[in-house]
């Protein structure tokens, strides 16, 4: 079967991943039927994990591996989480294939999860660590949206820095009905704890201001 990533893209990704620090793993949940992009998402994760020894890839079945799916709060396929070097879930989830522009938020999540310092100022980190209530962030994206990866990366980084925060990229075309429930017709759309919305690629401070208002 033809690969999803051509040689040039593979080389770019390999180069990008050379900055990784520790090991990470992908746990992908797919379904055998009724899932248009499960095959391509599996191919993408397989091909990317083959580009660096520090990446492990595990493929689960949403209908069979129900306990694990529940552990990560996964109810849709394709959906995957990135675990850190201790195999710990740090609240970083992607629902739908992170292709198009979204490959960038995916690759930066890999680098970030591997333990590379993402250069936040101490004051910002302190503010993030002070968040005590559970926060759920959904960032709705389309693959043609250039402003979306920034919003996803910010949300994922927040999750990595505080275990009360969970962040999910939702690819709105794959999960069209789900996105419709949230009235999404423009992206990036950020939904926080089901009640608060932010539109557009927001800086970290806007996320923090919203969390602190909840």
């Amino acid at each position: 079967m033809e690969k999803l990533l051509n040689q040039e893209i593979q080389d770019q990704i390999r180069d990008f991943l050379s900055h990784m620090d520790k090991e990470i793993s992908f746990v992908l949940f797919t379904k055998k039927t009724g899932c248009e992009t499960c095959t391509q998402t599996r191919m993408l994760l397989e091909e990317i994990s083959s580009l660096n020894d520090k990446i492990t890839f595990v493929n689960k079945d949403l209908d069979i591996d129900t306990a694990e799916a529940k552990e990560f709060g996964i109810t849709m396929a394709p959906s995957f989480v990135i675990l850190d070097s201790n195999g710990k879930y740090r609240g970083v989830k992607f629902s739908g294939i992170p292709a198009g522009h979204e490959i960038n938020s995916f690759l930066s999540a890999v680098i970030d999860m591997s333990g590379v310092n993402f250069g936040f100022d101490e004051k910002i980190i302190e503010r993030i660590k002070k968040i005590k209530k559970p926060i759920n962030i959904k960032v709705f994206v389309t693959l043609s949206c250039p402003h979306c990866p920034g919003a996803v990366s910010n949300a994922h980084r927040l999750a990595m820095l505080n275990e009360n925060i969970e962040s999910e990229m939702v690819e709105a075309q794959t999960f069209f009905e789900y996105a419709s429930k949230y009235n999404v017709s423009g992206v990036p759309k950020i939904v926080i704890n089901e009640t608060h919305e932010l539109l557009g690629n927001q800086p970290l401070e806007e996320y923090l201001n919203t969390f602190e208002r909840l």
Partner: protein
Amino acid sequence: MFTFNIEKANNEANFSLSINWDLIIIGGGPAGLNASLYAKRKGLEVGIITDEIGGQLHNTTEVDNYLGFKKIEGKDLSEQFLNHINNLNVPILKNIRVKEIKHLNPDFEIFLSNGKIIKSKTILIATGGSPRKLEVDGEETFKNTGVSYCTTCDAPFFKDKHVIVAGGGNSAVEAILDLVPWASKITLVHRSLWRADQILLDKIKNLEKVTILLNTEIKNIYGDNKMQGLTVYSKEKNDLYDIKADGIFIEIGTIPNSSLVMNLVEVNDRNEIIVDKNQMTSVEGIFAAGDVTIQPDKQIIISAAEGAKAALAATKYLNKYYKETE
């Protein structure tokens, strides 16, 4: 089949927070990128701080008026620009916004959204523009539930739907072309006559799904939990009527992203930064280039050229005020 638009790794690691930079460029669109090219070649310690690389290039699918490229996608042109800059190892801080600039006389302190502070001898404001709003009732209410400013981002939500495009310039016609593969019906509404290039108008003239309403003003956007339509006024027919539609893409030009320096440099009545022939603002050491300035024609090639002018002027300024006194 899926495509993968990988943004080239930049030189974030080289971005020193401790040196006193010669030139810090705020903005990573055509003006900022070209300025960095010219400044680096002159040997300046130059860095770029930007939210996104490419700026408004990403809001346009196709560019066919940049000399040397007969037809290129906006994101590909942005990548070409970045490749060129990366060859010169210009450090770039991405996904970072500048919150405040303080004038220390003669140097500047730049406060970043990640909480860090950096110092520079000169600054180039190349922050570009954001979509101009119609400022009619309903526009804010239905933002992202029908009202959109980015066809490349949001066109897929309007598959088999009726959408409105507001505007009569090149970006409005380009929005129609972006929507053609998705929408079942597209109606362009513009309050006066065409301002778009003839070459673009020729591309839409035979499209069956496109209806053009010129001399027609949008009065409001209505709906319940999402947009359902708009009320328009036809100047020719002196008639106020409703058009049912699922979405509207507003393409009526840009407003300058000048709020960062509004209290620091002089701006005109449209909040565009006033610059002299060397792109210098009213504050010595702060330059501005591209769509954020008073330059009336907001074009990629003009922004890039202004960036080059600003970098060369900053070099002369640094030579005069720093090297001669060192």
